């Protein structure tokens, strides 16, 4: 078992209970998707695993998180990155004023030697050729899709075993979403485990083997990705398809989503 989230509870600012008894597991080399509406607690789940919640005044107050058999809950991000656990935050957080290549160099700060950094940069360029073309460009001026590729490439620099990636498709044009997910599929092939948080359920379930649906800080449904894809509730509320396979308007779904409760 690579990752084991065991009955985890997260509290922000000592009072706001956001995750309530979350359980998840994943095998090395697999890919899981975590789905759910806005505010469900998806980002919080990733932050709890990577340790970023600490810097946001959050804390795992009960339960445990194990990565490769070691407890990682409430550990520092630094130590988790060193273990090969890296969090790609939502919002494509590039280092704006640096070139693409320097972003990658910084991403490789855990590597031992400059030679190793060079080597990995070449690997990243092979995997994401677009970045090689952009190497001298200032990251802040790249398009959204290019920035998303860059933050993925930067995460790869740290030689990760598991990448936690938060809403990689957010705000991207459909073609770009495809590009980005193609890269994620490549990562899987190279043996890296992926934990994808997405609102684009379709795209996420296509890459993932297993999916979890979260609502109000609880996992309300989980299953094999293809099973979830067939599930009526998921289809209706996350894929925006009704039984006849028609796509509902976004507004209808959104309206529904707010009232619908998965427990029931």
């Amino acid at each position, binding site marked *: 078992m690579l990752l084991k989230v065991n009955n985890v509870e997260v509290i922000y600012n000592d009072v706001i209970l956001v995750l309530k008894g979350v359980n998840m597991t994943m095998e090395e080399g697999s890919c899981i998707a975590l789905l759910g509406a806005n505010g469900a607690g998806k980002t919080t789940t990733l932050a709890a695993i990577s340790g*970023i919640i600490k810097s946001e005044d959050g804390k795992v107050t009960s339960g445990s998180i194990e990565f490769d058999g070691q407890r990682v809950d409430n550990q520092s991000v630094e130590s988790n990155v060193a273990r090969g656990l890296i969090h790609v935050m939502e919002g494509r*957080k590039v280092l704006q004023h640096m070139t693409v290549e320097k972003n990658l160099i*910084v991403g490789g*700060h855990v590597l031992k030697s400059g030679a190793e950094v060079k080597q990995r940069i070449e690997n990243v360029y092979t995997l994401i050729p677009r970045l090689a073309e952009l190497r001298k460009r200032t990251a802040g001026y790249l398009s959204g899709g290019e920035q998303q590729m860059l933050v993925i490439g930067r995460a790869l620099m740290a030689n990760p075993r598991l990448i936690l990636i938060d809403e990689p498709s957010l705000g991207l044009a459909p073609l770009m979403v495809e590009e980005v997910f193609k890269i994620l599929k490549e990562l899987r092939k190279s043996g890296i485990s992926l934990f994808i948080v997405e609102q684009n359920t379709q795209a996420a379930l296509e890459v993932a083997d297993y999916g979890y649906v979260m609502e109000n800080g609880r996992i309300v449904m989980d299953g094999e990705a293809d099973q979830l894809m067939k599930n009526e509730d998921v289809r209706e509320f996350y894929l925006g398809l009704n039984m006849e396979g028609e796509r509902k308007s976004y507004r209808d779904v959104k309206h529904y989503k707010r009232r619908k409760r998965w427990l029931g």
Partner: protein
Amino acid sequence: MIGEFLDYAINGALIGLLYALVAMGFVVIYRASKVFNFAQGELVVVGGFIVWWLTLGMGLPWYFAIPLAFLLAAIVGYVIERLFFSKLVGESVFSMVMVTIGLLILIRGIVLVVFGAQVRPFPTIFPLKPIIIGDVLIPQSLLYGGILAVIIALALSWFFNQTRTGLKMTASAEDHQVALSMGISVRMSIAAAWVMGSVISTIGAIIFLSGKSLTFLASEIGFIALPVALLAGLESIGGLILAGIIMGVVQGLAEGYLDPIVGGSVGSILPFFIMVFILFVRPTGLFGWKTIERV
């Protein structure tokens, strides 16, 4: 005529480089921690007193005293960061500024208590004899100081833009949260910046004070470094060289030509006029980081 002009301009430029050097300490700290350090001049004074204490006080030879002074200054920088700023990461700019003002007062107090209020001679580290070229008279300490300032600026630029450790610090300068998410220790970066800022201030003190006298009034150089840093843009180290030269030449010429007419002090207030002007027309200075807004 032209000789007089050159004399004002060249000496102005060299003094400007000295401002730039002190501003480097300021900018290194600002970049990493976003602390707008009003006590930068006090760090120069502390550096000055450390050097004085080791050389004239303890009687150590300069080649031994100066490295030791850097080491002590580094410790001072580190301790200041740990004591006053490490708990404040992420707090408002306002509270940080208030702490630096508190620090300024505190350091003045400590210096006064430890070293007393009397004027001390400062060791002559650079030769006193000026270099004379035509009508231009250049004090050697200024000349060597200017060269040193340029070298240090180049070294720092290279460090922050080309080396892995430097880029790591630049990353945390750019965005604490992003750096943190990559597993970079932002705390370490900030502590390292205070250490560097404090050592740079000591170098500034050595050049500025060489052969002169030392009191806590030397801290005023920190105040002139401020407009230089703002003119360069708070994130640019290389830009400080140009900004320092501009500021120094303008000040030198104003002191040479305007002060005799109006009876003084134009030269000393001009940098602050330029600063206010810059803040109005181009808040990011000549080379500072512009906010990149993408939609």
